[in-house]
């Protein structure tokens, strides 16, 4: 883990730590030598940069009927059954940040199940069509909705080939402070941006690991030494609807 972290380190972070070391004294013995394991988190006051691109790899061979990732997402972000207000909505209108999808190959009868959420496209159609600039891609590749400027027109929902976005129809209360959501705006998977910024992994990936399924990998696609990049290099990973050439941040194996 510590190797992984030091490999991920970019120049600005190294500079920050070196500087912090000279002021704090005890943290660093010499540049690059750490007494404590450095957290993977960027400093809270630093903006995200394009040196990283976060991605998720999903191995469908290890994914079965379990829906722990969906449950974890609901609890973490306070949507669906985690927020009783929404139970009044009709099923077609209920929020779905992540859902389990079953696929069946008609010729072989082979059935597989996979979680489908926002694919965090490099060239995201939702960002293209947004009339207000509310739908945007962060420097590190995470596609988000700025609900402060979302007018709820739902163009992005129409544009998304993965049906990844939901519109909030109900007046919402008891939101999580780290995942604000309210009536009249569009929402989708945020790749748990609040956790990622703190150096943690998304809730779905954590739940998948916790239950020892290990079907999901999260990491930096730009870092060739990260687990996700090495997995992709060794065994590959396809995009859903690769023909659309969206260069998705979420990749699947075995589809």
């Amino acid at each position, binding site marked *: 883990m510590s190797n992984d972290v030091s490999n991920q380190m970019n120049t600005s972070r190294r500079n920050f730590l070196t500087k912090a070391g000279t002021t704090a004294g005890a943290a660093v013995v010499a540049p690059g030598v750490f007494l404590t394991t450095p957290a993977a988190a960027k400093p809270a*006051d630093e*903006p995200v940069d394009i040196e990283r691109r976060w991605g998720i790899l999903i191995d469908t061979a290890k994914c079965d009927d379990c829906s722990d990732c969906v449950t974890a997402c609901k609890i973490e972000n306070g949507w669906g059954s985690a927020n009783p207000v929404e139970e009044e909505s009709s099923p077609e209108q209920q929020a779905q940040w992540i859902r389990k999808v079953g696929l069946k190959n008609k010729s072989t009868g082979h059935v597989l199940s996979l979680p489908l959420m926002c694919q965090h496209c490099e060239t995201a159609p939702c960002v293209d069509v947004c009339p207000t600039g509310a739908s945007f891609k962060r420097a590190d590749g995470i596609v988000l909705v700025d609900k402060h400027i979302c007018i709820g027109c739902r163009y992005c929902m129409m544009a998304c080939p993965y049906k990844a976005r939901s519109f909030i129809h109900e007046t919402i*209360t008891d*939101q999580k*402070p780290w995942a604000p959501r309210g009536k009249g705006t569009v929402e989708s998977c945020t790749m748990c941006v609040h956790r990622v910024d703190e150096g943690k992994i998304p809730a779905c990936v954590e739940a998948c690991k916790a239950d020892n399924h290990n079907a999901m990998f999260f990491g930096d696609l730009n870092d060739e030494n990260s687990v996700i990049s090495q997995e992709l290099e060794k065994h590959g990973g396809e995009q859903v609807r690769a023909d659309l050439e969206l260069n998705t941040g979420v990749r699947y194996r075995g589809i």
Partner: protein
Amino acid sequence: MRHPTVMRTVLRTLLAMLLALPLAAFGGEALPFSELSMSEPQRQFSETQECVQPEEEMRRNHMEYILHQRDETVHKGIRTRVYALEECINCHATRVEETGEYVRADDPRHFCAACHTYASVKIDCFQCHADVPVRESTLNTGNNSVPKDEIHGLAAELQQMLAAEGKP
């Protein structure tokens, strides 16, 4: 009576009487505004730690600080806690004395609602954001803590920006 000066005098007297009416009704002591009471912030910070800015500055410009922080956080992923709305709520939450529960944003006793109801300024923060504390404040702990002189540094920077935009 048609003389303009006379007319003006009559109008002025009438106006003065009208203005004096509410004063007469309240005996000149209890004005309608006297019912406004501010909720006292729960001191979840240490005794030495005041609000992130002086009171008069926060009363006038709190919205600018929150707005600035909002864009920094959503678009750039800057997650410093000093001007985070969540930390405002953590500190300024009001509890109902009898039940010990926090009052919600639609209750006039809520710290934000106390002024905003009075001033008739509608805020939509709490259509999306949590209006009561959910998790412990991280303002003064962990890697989110900002030394006090640095708070002033950040605040000074923001004030310069505001000045450049021609805002008080």
